């Protein structure tokens, strides 16, 4: 499942503000985007109804500390408040619970002003102390190891204070440039529900099926692996939803979900695989939508400098040859139904500009790969890798036969992609053996050791190649993190270890000037493009479908039901 990677990479929560909120209260965000769906004064709005969604991977846990799946976080986005969110057009930060913020003391202290008159769903008033108490509780030593906390605060939060009921001050131990993107993922949890847990075990075991929240919707019922049903929060501080509530229903296979959509048992499907998309496009009662997304499929080449076997894989020229041997266009056509484009970086273009810079977070001018098997063959010939038995070349005395680790649950069609790779590589004299695993086992294969601490010397030594993918949040920091040495045994799936890259990562983490920071981020992407631990394959559009009886949904790179913004659920309504 991509969920593990997805989840980690999503260290920056995107909380899309309802645009109305941004318009009325927001600061720190640039121009508020206009209301989506064109329902401002146009066709009559039919109020009410329940918007029914067929889940992608489903909700695996209602506990934010233990939830992996993207759907869980999509759900949290729409039931909890967050300090800040993302505007889904510009990906600037807008306030949700917070009305304004500023960084002081060189970025070590962050002051947030939060709204007045907010209530928890159990009626109690929500004040700054609630926010601070939960943060201090979560980052306290006795709860060390609690999921999500490390991602958001990374051990850098010294203390959260609430000098008055409307002000939260976060004191960090160093300047942190990415505070907003991290906090955009931190749900505001009710102290009355959570503070009573004194240990990691207790906090992790809490099922949280009836969460006390302050977001636009409250949970009315939850059946694990089946259904999450919500209704509009009557005491919500923001724009009132037009629908009565939404529901997320689990379908284990795409045919069942599509069938339910066409027979009107469901109103929307979150993720449609490429091959079945054309038939949905042809269906006049459905809106079949393809939106540029953050999904990037990739081809991984083991980049651990201490790799033991097949060390020719570390040769940059060989990697260039590999890149020339891949026909990315055909992947777009066959696997993604022509909805997408070849990728040149794991950082997507879909998120546009980095807030505060007016420049794209995706580095411009990166080298473009072209499908040129003749060039690939020339390079390999030039390296002296002669062809031998069955046309397979020999390098360093051993035939160029490599194993490709394929996690079958990574994305639909990944196994088919491996087929194509076999064909392409045999054309350049390289033999590929495909080994399939599920995600967990695949990770273990790649890491290759059970040692407690993973270093370049003891791990990532034996695997050759892999196929996987990433999805990410607007700020590229958490995606670029995966190629640092510090992520050995955790997020790293390439074994890439480059001190210059690691230094860059540390610098951008604390660089408070967005333009300077962007320069570092571009530099990191250029390093990856040069060293090629990943050969990025395809930026695939997110394919979704919903009934034409509903309107008001905007496409975002994460889909209509996402972790960036609750705007869609606030705007969606039946066609009048």
């Amino acid at each position: 499942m991509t969920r593990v990677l997805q989840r980690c990479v999503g260290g920056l929560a995107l909380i899309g503000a309802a645009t109305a909120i941004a318009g009325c209260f927001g600061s720190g965000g640039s121009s508020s985007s206009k209301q989506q769906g064109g329902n401002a004064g146009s066709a009559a709005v039919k109020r009410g109804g329940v918007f029914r969604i067929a889940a992608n991977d489903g909700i695996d846990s209602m506990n934010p500390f233990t939830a992996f799946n993207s759907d869980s976080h999509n759900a949290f986005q729409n039931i909890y408040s967050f300090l800040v969110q993302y505007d889904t057009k510009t990906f600037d930060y807008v306030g949700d619970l917070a009305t304004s913020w500023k960084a002081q003391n060189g970025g070590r202290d962050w002051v947030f002003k939060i709204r007045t008159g907010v209530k928890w769903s159990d009626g109690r008033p929500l004040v700054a102390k609630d926010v601070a108490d939960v943060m201090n509780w979560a980052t306290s030593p006795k709860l060390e190891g609690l999921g999500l906390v490390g991602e958001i605060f990374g051990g850098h939060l010294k203390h959260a204070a609430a000098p008055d009921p409307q002000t939260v001050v976060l004191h960090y131990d160093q300047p942190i440039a990415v505070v907003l993107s991290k906090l955009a993922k931190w749900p505001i949890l009710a102290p009355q529900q959570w503070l009573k847990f004194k240990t990691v075990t207790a906090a992790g075991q809490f099922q949280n099926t009836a969460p006390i929240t302050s977001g636009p919707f409250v949970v009315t019922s939850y059946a694990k692996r089946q259904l999450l049903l919500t209704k509009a929060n009557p005491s919500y501080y923001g724009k009132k939803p037009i629908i009565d509530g939404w529901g997320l229903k689990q379908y284990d296979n795409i045919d069942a979900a599509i069938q339910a959509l066409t027979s009107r048992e469901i109103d929307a499907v979150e993720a449609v695989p490429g091959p079945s998309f054309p038939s949905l496009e042809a269906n006049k009662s459905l809106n079949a939508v393809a939106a540029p997304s953050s999904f990037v499929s990739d081809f991984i080449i083991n980049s651990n400098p201490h790799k033991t076997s097949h060390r020719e894989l570390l040769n940059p020229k060989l990697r260039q040859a590999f890149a020339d041997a891949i026909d990315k266009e055909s992947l777009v056509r066959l696997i993604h139904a022509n909805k997408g484009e070849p990728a040149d970086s794991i950082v997507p273009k879909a998120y546009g500009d980095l807030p505060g810079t007016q420049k794209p977070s995706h580095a411009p001018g990166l080298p473009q790969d072209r499908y040129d098997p003749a060039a690939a063959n020339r390079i390999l010939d030039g390296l002296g890798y002669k062809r031998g038995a069955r046309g397979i070349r020999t390098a360093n005395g051993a035939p160029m036969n490599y194993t490709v680790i394929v996690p079958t649950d990574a994305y639909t069609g990944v196994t088919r992609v491996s087929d194509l790779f076999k064909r392409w590589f045999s054309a350049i004299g390289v033999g590929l053996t495909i080994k399939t695993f599920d995600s967990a086992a695949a990770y273990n294969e790649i890491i290759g050791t059970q040692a407690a601490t993973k270093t370049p010397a003891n791990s990532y030594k034996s695997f050759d190649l892999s196929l996987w993918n990433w999805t990410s949040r607007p700020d590229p920091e958490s995606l670029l993190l995966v190629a640092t040495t510090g992520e050995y045994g955790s997020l790293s799936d390439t074994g890439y270890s480059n001190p210059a890259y690691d230094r860059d990562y540390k610098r951008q983490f604390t660089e408070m000037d967005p333009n300077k920071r962007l320069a570092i981020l571009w530099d990191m992407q250029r390093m990856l493009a040069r060293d090629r631990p990943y050969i990025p394959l395809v930026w695939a559009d997110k394919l979704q479908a919903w009934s034409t009886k509903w309107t008001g949904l905007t496409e975002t790179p994460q889909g209509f039901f996402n972790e960036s913004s609750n705007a869609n659920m606030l705007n969606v309504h039946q066609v009048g």
Partner: protein
Amino acid sequence: MVRGLDYALKRVGFALITLFVVITMNFFLFRVLPGNAVTNLGRDARLSPQAQHALRVQFGLDKSTAAQYVAYLRQLAHGNLGISYQSRAPVLDELTTDLKNTIPMVGVATLLAIVLGLATGVIAAWRRRTWADHGSVATALIFYAMPVAWLGLMLLLLSNGALPAGGMYDDFAVHTTLLSKWADAGKHMILPAATLALGLYGQFTVITRSAMLETIGEDYVLMARAKGLGNARIITRHVLPNALLPITTLIALSLGFVVGGAILVETVFSWPGIGQAVFRALSERDYPILQGAFLVLAASVIFCNLIADLLYLKLDPRTAA
């Protein structure tokens, strides 16, 4: 009848021993699986080595295998099947919910299969060597030969939207009456239960037919016919009861396997039952759930085998000899 009791006790004893062997081997089997849940969980939360250790301790993964085994047995004795790695909820609770979802669907399917099998078997036997016979047996064999997952997909294709494609209920429907609620549940159960039933009934047909043919040739049936008794009476009063012996035990045995084997049907129809739980737990490396599910499934099969043995004893006293 002391003999019978002796036999019964032996069978019970055997069942218990088998259960114990199942428990032990299941425990060790899952220790062989590569990767454990902590490596899975730990990666996401980016735990420090201390925190990873804490997780290990929590799940008892830091102790030796022998110590873990003893702890497992002790937990079992208290009816505690452990805590799921993934949801941190008690395994027993999760499996109970899953079973509660699986059993009705599977129960309906088995009932359907039994009825269908009996009916077609009786017809086939009574109208031996006619088209009814050949047709029944041929149809039974064809369904028997279908891969269950494929059959499910075909029914989905054929139903063309007339029946729900997945799930147990229409969770969004608001039901004003209990009847409408049941109707909804029933509608969702039709396809999965039908798939299971169609795949299962073929055996019953063949067995019923053979058993009936065997008894039809018996003298007492000839006697009954000579006495002028009607067909229906002969079948129900004289033939079926004797044919019931192998049929009953066959059914009891099937139940065990059917509960354990609904994995494919639950996958095709998104049925949130124990079969689906097994497959999901496997990809999540959720050992406690897997262990618990295996135990439950194996126990149910052992139990059904025991019932079959005891039934056999009741219906055919010669067994005790």
